């Protein structure tokens, strides 16, 4: 008995010493969609540097941002590294480490192969900077895409019927007006010969999803020549919802038109107000719809769907109708209160480096942020659409605000958008003006 107790105590001491002996323990917080990739990158990093141990904690989107903010404002230092959503840049910036300043202070830690200029320029800013402060390196590049059933669009019989009905060729819609016709054609209720039950899968729930979905429709108006003339150039911090001088832009004729486009399309979609990411993903996966605006991460699950095989022949990827899809994505940054800043800096360089960026795309469908990865022959062979549609989408993307007040602005607008789509309130400039007034209040004006 005594011997056993002694052995256990000794083992405990040895384990404790092993822990103490390690140079550093990094705590990495991550959103669930980034977690698998970060976990593998962390494993690779630990193999390279056995003296460091990395613990990756996935936190849901709703939880991650408040937790980061709570930690940073309290100065607790509960995490060393975190993925941060591009919209949260303004709110978290004061508590994040300035990477450019840190690199200047520690030139010996800078990876000579990091190649900062290799990042796509928009990605470099929106996933990296708040004003002049470098709060992260681009980790997950994302804009929404328009996925469609390639086999149906290429079907000669369907092409013929479409031509007869609409007097033009069946093609992937370039704008939302065309999308309405194609969606109608592929909805059984309006066309009994349609091979799919619905034309398009749309997610318009009362969550943050609606805030970004609206931009897919408003973006094309905001970024058109008339839109730029009326509202001015888009500021990457204030985003497309605002004019160049920081006033709300959506309470306009263009905002009403965008909402009307959404309302018009709703009759071709399965339960748009009751569907979110999971429901629409499932609808496309089961072959129920012909088209769907979605993020790239869904590709991984669709590849497994029996109804979508052979995948390359059945699923096509295009730029969002209107050409201004909403941007998403994540940066990877360091807590200013981290006790392991040096290792954290090494790790984020590794994770966002060329090798990591390529691995993330090929294995986890996490959008690349580096030009060299998009031009990589292996990546080109794997995803030929990436070079065209991806870069075009990312460079022409509409952006949500990145200012600290963003979450509150989001909820105020989403509430009213949802009421308009539900028919509880009229789709008019007056209704949107009310929201704009609320926004001004939130912004303290």
């Amino acid at each position, binding site marked *: 008995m005594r011997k056993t107790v002694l052995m256990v105590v000794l083992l405990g001491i040895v384990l404790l010493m092993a822990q103490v002996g390690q140079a550093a323990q990094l705590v990495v917080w991550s959103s669930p969609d980034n977690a698998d990739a970060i976990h593998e990158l962390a494993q690779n990093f630990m193999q390279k540097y056995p003296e460091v141990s990395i613990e990756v904690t996935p936190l849901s989107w709703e939880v991650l941002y408040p937790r980061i903010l709570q930690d940073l404002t309290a100065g607790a230092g509960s995490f060393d590294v975190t993925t941060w959503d591009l919209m949260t840049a303004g709110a978290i910036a004061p508590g994040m480490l300035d990477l450019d300043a840190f690199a200047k202070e520690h030139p010996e830690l800078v990876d000579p192969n990091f190649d900062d200029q290799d990042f796509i320029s928009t990605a470099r800013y929106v996933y990296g900077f708040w004003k002049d402060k470098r709060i992260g390196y681009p980790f997950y590049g994302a804009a929404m895409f328009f996925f469609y059933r390639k086999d149906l669009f290429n079907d000669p019989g369907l092409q013929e019927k479409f031509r007869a009905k609409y007097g033009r060729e069946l093609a992937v819609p370039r704008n939302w007006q065309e999308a309405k016709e194609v969606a109608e054609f592929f909805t059984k209720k309006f066309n009994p010969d349609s091979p799919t039950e619905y034309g398009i899968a749309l997610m318009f*729930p009362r969550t943050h999803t609606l805030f970004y979905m609206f931009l897919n429709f408003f973006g094309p108006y905001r970024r058109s020549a008339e839109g730029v003339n009326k509202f001015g150039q888009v500021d990457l911090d204030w985003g497309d919802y605002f004019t160049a001088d920081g006033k709300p832009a959506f309470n306009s004729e263009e905002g009403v038109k965008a909402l009307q486009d959404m309302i018009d399309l709703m009759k071709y979609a399965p339960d*748009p107000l*009751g569907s979110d990411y999971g429901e629409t993903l499932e*609808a496309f996966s089961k072959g129920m719809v012909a088209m769907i605006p979605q993020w790239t991460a869904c590709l991984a699950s669709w590849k497994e769907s029996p109804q979508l095989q052979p995948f390359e022949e059945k699923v096509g990827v295009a730029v969002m109708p209107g050409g201004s899809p909403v941007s998403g994505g994540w940066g990877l940054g360091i807590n200013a209160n981290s006790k392991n800043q040096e290792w954290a800096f090494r790790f984020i360089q590794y994770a966002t480096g060329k090798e990591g960026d390529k691995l993330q795309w090929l294995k986890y469908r996490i959008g690349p942020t580096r030009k060299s990865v998009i031009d990589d022959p292996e990546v080109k062979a794997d995803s030929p659409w990436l070079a065209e549609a991806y870069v075009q989408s990312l460079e022409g993307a509409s952006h949500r605000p990145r200012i600290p007040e963003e979450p*509150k602005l989001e909820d105020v607008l989403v*509430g009213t958008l949802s009421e308009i*789509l539900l028919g509880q309130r009229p789709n008019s400039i007056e209704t949107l003006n009310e929201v704009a007034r609320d926004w001004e209040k939130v912004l303290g004006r």
Partner: protein
Amino acid sequence: MKRNARRQKITGFLMVLPLLIVFLGLTIYPFAYMIYMSFHRYTLASWEKPEFIGFKNYQDIWQDRTARSSVDFTVLLLVTAVPLEILLGIGIAFLLRDFFGERVFRSVLLVPMMVPAVVAGIAWKMLYNFDFGPMNYFLSIFGFPKISWLGTQFFSRLGVILIDVWQWTPFVFLVLYAGLQSIPREVVEASLVDGASGLSALRYIELPLLRPLIWVVLVIRVIDALKIFDVVYMVTFGGPGSATHSYSFYIYKVGISFGWDIGYASALSIILLLAITILTNVLIRTVRLRETLEL
């Protein structure tokens, strides 16, 4: 003798002290801080120190459309789900008494109450799925068209009310069933011998004896219904529109999702607390619960 009594008092106080410290630290201090914060502008996302603004947060609540619509739905839930739960709970308790297989039914009936709200929320979201959900599947068997349970105002509200009734009727049943067991059988049997029908015995003897418990359950359910959060969070997220946006859910969004607007969320919470306190006190006084329970 005096010294002994004093020592006993001190010992007693020392024994209670740890609990008192925990109570002060975890209940009284946060509560006082919440009241204090409700008079301040303090949002973590702005990285600014709290600024005293008097009653501004409270004034803003009256002009806040989302707060008003959240009150609407919460009141709707209160006046529909709670009475339904009480009626069903009473009915099931009476029906199940002396019923064949009583024990099995009793255990099965308690399952919804024991399922964690998060799990129940996920399960109901799947049940309500427009294309693949069992609810619409069973309706289609009887020739009904598909219902957008989460995409229309009427059905999303009905959906949340149904979940609340499903989850909390067992609680009402459990309390009243236990109450029924404690009613002396001799009283009921004596009334039957005197010529009362079963229904009369139920109406004039059993229900009056159960009344104190019914009031207690009602007060508990009213408080719970005013605080409904988990089902809304998991199933509808307050939508579509403002159809199922409950008041507690709004407090969560203001206090956490919006980037920690501590001041405004505190003011909203104080209003909820006042509403619960007033409503339960009115209820307690109306039904003379203190006298009934001899408190």
